[in-house]
Structures are given as structure tokens and as C-alpha cells.
């Protein structure tokens, strides 16, 4: 074989592999790697940013007539990522300093604040490992687990939040109707052009079963079967869903835009005044047989003016 031909074949082979890897990087890898650590992405929020009592914390404190002391039996708080800022702020406002122990990127066993996320928090409250969890409504599986361990859950609505649909900032679509959104997730609409957008395939993203946003989405679908991914969907333009606070208040290098639904944008004001159609309540949840006096005092406080002021100061809409 001629030397020049052999070298050309080798260069071409190397170029094919380089092109393949570059394409994989641009289409997939680049989109799934961000500035947060794997642990932060699992948590969906930086725990340290809202760590109660820490210097420079973003946890909110309000003037509180309820103040637990170190000698009190402190209710263990836990919950969803999107609501971690709420219960971290509750601890910062009501709990004594030193009650929250955070080491090596996680809460220690004896800490009054824990972070298990919705999926595990419902299990923790049913098992008695957490006293009050802050979450969206439970899924049928989560209620089923509680029943299986003989627990009945008491759900106390403490605030309201917008359930939002998100797309890339460059997607020309700015709003959809509820019928169109359901149609995307049933597979009725396959291309953004059908909805007044660009000629690109729609890539509807779903969330983990049992997560707060997935449970709300299942309610939104009103019994209609959701499609689970589309072949070559990664070549299209995505749509996903989450809660407004998580989209707006958690700082990120990259951003997305929230869609107006039925002509109403999910601004804090529209969620508060009830004009945005997809407003969901979130709850402080405990076992209904948890008769710890401080659990009851804290639940009452969350519904008081002071507690509701805290909900609003964190960035959510008050329930009362």
C-alpha cells in the first residue's frame, strides 16, 4: 500500500471518530453537565445557600413569637427540594442556633433539619424519621406506603405555588393553552409548528415518578395517559415542567423561559391573585397520630401571620 494512501485512511478514520465524539458532546453531553456538583443536582438546590444560621445564608428570618429552646424536643423538618428554602427559613426563625448540623455536604443524624427530597421524605414522615415534611401533595404510591406502615398523613396547606411549563429561551412559543399542553404530553401534538412555533419536533420531558412535580403533572393530565419520551426527541426542542420558585429563584448559569398558560404568565403576582390557572397548594405534612406538642405549635405558627409572612418572604404565595 502506498504510504500516502495509508496515512489518508488513518487520518480519515481518526476524523470520523472525532466527528462522532463532537456530535455526541454537542447533542448530549453539553446539555447534561452544568456548573452544579452531582450532589447539588441530585438535590436540585445548593443546601449550603440556605443553611440556617450560616454566614451569608439566603434563609429568611422573620420576627417570631414562637421560639424553641435547646431544651425543647425539636420537630425534625424535611421535605422537597423546591421547599427546602421554606423549612430552612422556618428553622432559622424558630429553632435555636446549633440545632442544625451540616457536615461534609449533608445534614447529620442529630440535625433538626434534614433533606431527603420528596421521594424519600414521604417515607421518612410515615416511618417517624421526620416530624414535619414540606411537600406538594403525595402520590398514590406515597399514600399507599403510609397506609402500609399504619400511618395516616395529615396535610396542612401552608402556601401556594405556580406549576410552570418551561422551554428554551430561543423557542419562539411564549404561551400555550391547557388543552395544548395536555396534547403535547398525550402525543397529539408532535411538532412545534402545530402550535405556532418553529418547524421542530416537540421533545416532552417528564420527571421521576413520585417527585412533587410529576405528581402535580399527573393530576394536570386528568387521567390521560402521558407519553414517555419520543424516538430521537433529543433532536427536537424540549418542554418540561417544574415549580416557579425552582425556576426563578435558584441561580444558574443557564436559564429557560416559563410559558404563559391560557394567556396568563406565571408571575408571582398572578399566582398570588389567582389568575394563573395552574396554582397548587403545598403542605406541611405530619402523621395524624403525632401528638408532640411542639409539632402542633409549629403547624399553628405556620398558619399564623408570622408564618405566612415567612412563606411570602421566601418567595411563595401565602395560603391565608
Amino acid at each position, binding site marked *: 500500500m502506498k504510504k500516502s494512501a495509508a496515512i489518508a485512511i488513518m487520518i480519515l478514520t481518526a476524523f470520523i471518530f472525532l466527528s462522532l*465524539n463532537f456530535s455526541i458532546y454537542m447533542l448530549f453531553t453539553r446539555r447534561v453537565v*452544568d456548573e452544579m456538583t*452531582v450532589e447539588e443536582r441530585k438535590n436540585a438546590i445548593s443546601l449550603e445557600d440556605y443553611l440556617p444560621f450560616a454566614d451569608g445564608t439566603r434563609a429568611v428570618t422573620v420576627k417570631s413569637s414562637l421560639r424553641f429552646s435547646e431544651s425543647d424536643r425539636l420537630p425534625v423538618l424535611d421535605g422537597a427540594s423546591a421547599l427546602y428554602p421554606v423549612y430552612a427559613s422556618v428553622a432559622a426563625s424558630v429553632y435555636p442556633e446549633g440545632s442544625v448540623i451540616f457536615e461534609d455536604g449533608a445534614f447529620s443524624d442529630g440535625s433538626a433539619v434534614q433533606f431527603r427530597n420528596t421521594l424519600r421524605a414521604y417515607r421518612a414522615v410515615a416511618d417517624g424519621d421526620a416530624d414535619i415534611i414540606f411537600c406538594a401533595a403525595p402520590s398514590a404510591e406515597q399514600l399507599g406506603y403510609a397506609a402500609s406502615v399504619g400511618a395516616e398523613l395529615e396535610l396542612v396547606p401552608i402556601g401556594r405555588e405556580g406549576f410552570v411549563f418551561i422551554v428554551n429561551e430561543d423557542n419562539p412559543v411564549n404561551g400555550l393553552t391547557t388543552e395544548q399542553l395536555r396534547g403535547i404530553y398525550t402525543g397529539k401534538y408532535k411538532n412545534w409548528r402545530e402550535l405556532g412555533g418553529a418547524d421542530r419536533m416537540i421533545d416532552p*420531558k417528564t420527571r421521576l415518578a413520585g417527585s412533587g412535580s410529576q405528581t402535580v403533572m399527573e393530576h394536570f393530565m386528568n387521567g390521560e395517559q402521558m407519553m414517555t419520551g419520543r424516538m430521537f426527541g433529543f433532536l427536537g426542542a424540549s418542554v418540561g415542567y417544574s415549580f416557579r420558585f425552582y425556576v426563578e429563584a435558584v441561580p444558574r448559569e443557564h436559564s429557560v423561559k416559563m410559558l404563559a398558560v391560557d394567556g396568563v404568565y406565571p408571575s408571582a403576582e398572578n399566582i398570588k391573585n389567582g389568575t394563573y390557572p395552574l396554582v397548587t397548594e403545598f403542605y406541611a405534612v405530619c402523621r395524624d397520630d403525632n401528638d408532640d406538642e411542639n409539632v402542633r405549635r409549629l403547624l399553628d405558627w405556620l398558619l399564623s401571620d408570622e408564618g405566612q409572612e415567612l412563606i411570602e418572604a421566601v418567595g411563595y404565595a401565602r395560603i391565608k
Partner: protein
Amino acid sequence: MKERTFYILMSVIVALGVAATAALAIYTAYEYQNCSIITYIATELW
């Protein structure tokens, strides 16, 4: 170039290419398990 030399060099290039592609695919799949939906949507190509 001797045929044997050519085949050895080609084998090395192909092996490196396959290894790099497999490593990138595994890394990407691992990251996808934990990726933020916001980052995923925000970084799509337009």
C-alpha cells in the same frame, strides 16, 4: 508502508476511537441520570 505496520496503526486508532466514544457515552449517561431539567432545556441548540 508495510501492510503489517498499517494494520497495527489502524488497530490502535480504531481502539482509541472506540474507547473514547464508549467513555464519553458512559459519562453522558451517568450525568443524564442526575441532570437538571432546566440545564437540559436551557442548553439545547437553536
